[in-house]
């Protein structure tokens, strides 16, 4: 299986739909340990992204993802804007010039995205942030690639691992972002950033491996 430009557009639309559907949940998770705007902000950003996507095609998958990232940076605000903006821009750079992508490309793109997010947000694994979903998602792709799994299977494993990483944020004490102000009181809540990052990888699995 290869993923085409149109498939990438379908993934972006699916993620936007997931964010819209889960807007309340993301906002409630954020209200518990942050400032209660994650769902609202991501929904505003992804709506703007859909406007950008509808406005006409970009040159290739890399250019498309860079445009998505730039749109998020200028519309989301908060911490989510620079972080998700960086994620998509790094993916775009990794997939520059590509018209179709395979498992190796996707793995490289997610690897670049995670590195970019970590450089921007300076979070370490276990700090109760989005990378606690993204890193298991990336690592599952890497081992699937090494193990010779199919793209479809790799996507499912990646989404499952991200979901587990998301659930594993519940007992963690936040060390980054506004949730860190709560100290021990942040434990017992699922991280909203890890939740939206799981939606991102789940949308890829559901769109491309369905």
């Amino acid at each position: 299986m290869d993923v085409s430009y149109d498939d990438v557009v379908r993934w972006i639309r699916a993620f936007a739909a997931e964010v819209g559907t889960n807007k309340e949940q993301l906002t409630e998770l954020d209200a518990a340990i942050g400032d209660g705007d994650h769902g609202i902000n991501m929904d505003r950003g992804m709506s703007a992204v859909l406007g950008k996507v509808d406005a006409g095609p970009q040159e290739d998958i890399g250019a498309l993802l860079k445009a998505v990232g730039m749109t998020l940076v200028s519309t989301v605000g908060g911490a989510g804007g620079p972080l998700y903006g960086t994620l998509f821009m790094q993916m775009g750079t990794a997939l520059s010039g590509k018209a179709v992508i395979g498992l190796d490309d996707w793995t490289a793109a997610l690897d670049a995205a995670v590195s970019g997010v970590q450089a921007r947000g300076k979070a370490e694994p276990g700090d109760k942030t989005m990378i606690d979903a993204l890193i298991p998602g990336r690592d599952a792709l890497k081992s699937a690639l090494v193990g010779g799994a199919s793209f479809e299977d790799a996507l499912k494993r990646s989404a499952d691992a991200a979901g587990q990483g998301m659930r594993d944020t519940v007992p963690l004490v936040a060390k980054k972002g506004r949730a860190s102000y709560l100290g021990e009181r942040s434990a017992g809540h699922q991280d909203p950033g890890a939740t939206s990052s799981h939606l991102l990888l789940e949308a890829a699995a559901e769109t491309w491996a369905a």
Partner: protein
Amino acid sequence: MKKLINKPEDVVTEELEGIAAAHPDLVRVQFNPNVIIRADAPIQGKVGLVSGGGSGHEPMHGGFVGQGMLDAACPGEVFTSPTPDQMLDATKAVDGGAGVLHIVKNYTGDVMNFDMAAELAGGESIQVEAVVIDDDVAVQDSLYTAGRRGVGATVLAEKICGAAAEAGRNLSEVAGLCRKVNANARSMGMALTSCIVPAAGKPTFELGDDEIEIGIGIHGEPGRERIKIEPSAKIVERLATPIVEDLPFEQGDQVLAFVNGMGGTPLIELYVVYNDLRKFLDGRGITISRNLIGPYITSLEMAGCSITLLKLDDELIELWDAPVKTAGLRWAA
């Protein structure tokens, strides 16, 4: 939700239209991306001062754009950091060739967005320095948190640095002064009630009728502890003690005492708080040389207050007293 608004999603835009209509002598407003710019910017040879943050804290920051204070402010969505494109436009609009200072409150989103903006401005050959304000003693400052939040000291830093820039000091001097204000200021706040973000439509947190939150953040972030309501003098002691002990402020110090209203608390109560603060500081031999009392860094309709103390010296007093002409803060020489 009862608010004087038309549609939740239009609040920021309509507020900005109102500001543009009300204060054309002081500012001009650029839309998409949104920036409030001093009417006569850029001023050749003067360091430009840019700040910004989520909306809902008015008059901060847009109300502090004008002579002797900020050159531009970037308003984000309510309680949400503005974006790098706003900050880049603001930086370009106020650069008079002497460089631009970004005054950033220490919130993860604000810091990251201003970092990206500084990278973009550097790419356009504008000299930018950024100073992060982190004066809130309610938050433990450690490797294990995002660090202390930027609150009341931001208003004082914007005023004092604005005066210094107006007097012709260079970028590194103004940035150094901003760090000095931050290093000598400490704050803590409390809430009597919650607040409602228009787009959320319901209170950010729940607080019982007889409960107060000590150490509240300006976005309704929980504080140090939740307790039953107490007399003002007792609450002032709870806020001022950690402030005084943290710096520490000591016998013989001169301070600027800033009693800030969170948005829903009337001046009559802020003056009661100020009176209790005066007595508290008297008891420790600390002299209030200057004061600022009123709602300057608010949290929508939240009731409550914050206290900021800034240790003064002759330099800071002179710059505080210098004339300022903005919508939110105004005095003559």
